[in-house]
């Protein structure tokens, strides 16, 4: 067991730090949350900078234009960019972490050539059209129908919660190609151009008040059969393959961020007064803060364990355990933050010299973490059934 960087890892870290120190001052301020064209511009400009410096597709194989970095280097990349306050992956998320890797492993040479380079440079933005109004946790029950018509599929259906749909060029779309097959066996994975006729995007406003995701209505949308990745009716397996690409790194930036926020919370507590003393004078509160610090330090250690597991190819229990525990801890952190801020937490803008904006928005935003990408209940089912071998309910 070794937590220190190897010589190669520390060289990688140093080089990255130098590059970030030189590059970040050239990056402009983040655009407003509601300014979608601006956000696309900002996120893709950052992606281009990463590409030019050789950091795009850090975990992708070299032969497909990635850096072919080890899982540990991937971890270092995410850790250092977060610590340096670099822009997030943003609208490039699905392309870099989901659709791209799927095309890497399951795509044809032609599909790879057409999309992978543009994903890496930030020229092509992807969204994920998996969930439907009737199919969330039970994703495999989805009903969006694709009927074969010559060398096209004609697609009809309704997707929902499609993040970044408004700015995306392509959608990784799950469709039902065989309605008579068992539910996991009749699904196909298609690349859908977002400008296809018959496609309507209707933004949904989140609890945060911004339009992070949309509904996507599909009305006789024609998609070339050549846009199918993997075999017909093999889309479920294709989807599952991709998940392994993350290699335990899904929450790195947020865990690093949480550890920073714990420190910030201690500082806030020293400033805020409650009754006749500062919040920090309250031993009970200090214990709660210390307790959360232990959890996030532990989650950080667990992340390192997961990354090592990924590197050895031995699947460990880490991914679901991490998702479940991290998202719940993050919510408790935000609740504690709100308690310390007191009535300053009622403002979404900084107030009274306190950083209310970040805490209050994230308090709202973190509500989604235990829902998106598999709810906490579903994670507990997965842990119980797949890791502990308990019998299924049905």
């Amino acid at each position: 067991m070794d937590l220190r960087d190897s010589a190669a890892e520390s060289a990688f870290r140093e080089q990255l730090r130098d590059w970030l120190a030189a590059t970040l001052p050239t990056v402009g301020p983040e655009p407003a949350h509601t300014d979608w064209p601006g956000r696309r511009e900002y996120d893709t400009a950052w992606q281009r900078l990463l590409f030019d410096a050789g950091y795009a597709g850090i975990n992708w194989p070299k032969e497909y234009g990635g850096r072919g970095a080890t899982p540990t280097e991937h971890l270092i990349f995410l850790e250092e960019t977060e610590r340096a306050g670099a822009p997030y992956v943003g609208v490039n998320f699905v392309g870099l972490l989901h659709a791209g890797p799927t095309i890497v492993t399951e795509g044809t040479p032609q599909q790879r050539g057409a999309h992978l380079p543009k994903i890496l440079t930030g020229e092509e933005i992807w969204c994920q059209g998996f969930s439907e109004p009737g199919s969330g946790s039970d994703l495999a029950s989805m009903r969006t129908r694709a009927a074969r018509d010559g060398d096209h599929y004609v697609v009809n259906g309704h997707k929902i919660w499609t993040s970044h749909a408004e700015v995306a060029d392509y959608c990784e779309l799950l469709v039902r190609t065989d309605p008579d097959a068992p539910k996991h066996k009749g699904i196909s994975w298609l690349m859908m151009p977002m400008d296809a006729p018959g496609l309507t995007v209707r933004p949904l406003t989140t609890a945060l008040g911004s339009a992070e995701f949309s509904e996507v209505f599909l009305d006789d949308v024609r998609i070339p059969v050549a846009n199918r990745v993997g075999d017909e009716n093999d889309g479920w397996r294709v989807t599952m393959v991709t998940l392994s690409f993350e290699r335990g790194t899904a929450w790195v930036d947020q865990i690093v961020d949480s550890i920073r926020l714990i420190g910030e919370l201690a500082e806030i507590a020293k400033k805020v007064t409650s009754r006749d003393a500062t919040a920090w004078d309250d031993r009970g509160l200090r214990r709660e803060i210390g307790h959360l610090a232990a959890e996030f330090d532990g989650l950080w250690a667990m992340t390192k364990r997961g990354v090592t597991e990924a590197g050895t190819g031995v699947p460990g229990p880490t991914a679901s355990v991490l998702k479940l525990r991290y998202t719940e801890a993050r919510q408790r952190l935000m609740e504690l933050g709100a308690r310390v801020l007191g009535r300053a937490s009622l403002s979404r803008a900084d107030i009274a010299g306190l950083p209310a904006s970040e805490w209050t928005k994230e308090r709202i935003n973190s509500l989604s973490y235990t829902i998106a990408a598999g709810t906490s209940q579903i994670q507990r089912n997965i842990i119980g059934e797949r890791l502990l071998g308990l019998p299924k309910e049905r």
Partner: protein
Amino acid sequence: MHFLPTEDQLELQRGVREVLASVFPLEKLPDGFDQSAWDSIVETGVFAIRTDLGLGLAEAALAFEELGRVCIPGPFVATFITAGFADGPVTFLDPARQPLLVPYLENSQAILILGEQPVLAPASEVVGSTALTEPLDPLSPLHELPSVPSGTAVGAAAEQLKHEGALLTAAIQVGIAARLTELAVSYAKTREQFDRPIGAFQAVKHICSDMLVRTELARASLHSAAVILDDLANGEMAVLDPGRAVSGAKLLADEAATGNGRSCVQVYGGMGFTWEVPVHFFLKRAWLHATEFGTADEHAEDLAAAL
């Protein structure tokens, strides 16, 4: 970075596990401290991991998880941390904590008294101690001392001994938490109600999942803290403040062990409340360790102070 046990480390852990399985199966648990089991453990070299084998706390933590897994009683932690300068078994006393209670006094050669200046007192010279007639953990006898005995100074810093003690106690707690998860899961797979294994019910399944989550988080924290203390001992740069790492590990391990104990009783239903099913022994041991080498509350406070 390679944050998984190496093959050698796993082999050492397996070795300890095998010895324990033969000298201290669950059936022996109700009999309490077992001198011959103790001797067999000494023979495995667990206490000499650092002094003779030249290994570190990472290896010790893996071995101590095994001691927790079988719930074997004995003054393991103090014996390990004093192995460089005292003959075991060695027990310990926290002089700042009232009442002054010492576990396994009659099974020990000496008491490590962990005040600001740690000292060692021969167990035979302790006067006026009384055995608790009803200790919480029936397998871990406790003696109450009328006052803090005097002893001879030892050549190790209090802070280091406290860190090591908390770490190895956390390792035992992680072992307890892991075993309780195994017990609950295997019961949930076999016990049937309403015509199906109770583990098929989400209300039970999710209890088991949470047990695993608590255990794995505590284990990652434990291993991280062990590696950090080893790095420090080897003059390397540690990735986190050692005190913070140890406090986090002890806090999460205490929660995993005691939380899993309660959960395991619940999964077992009425059987879980019987003397015959060993779950209560694990839980009571976890409660005992939760008061040793700093409570979760104290560690949480220390952690906050270190921010």
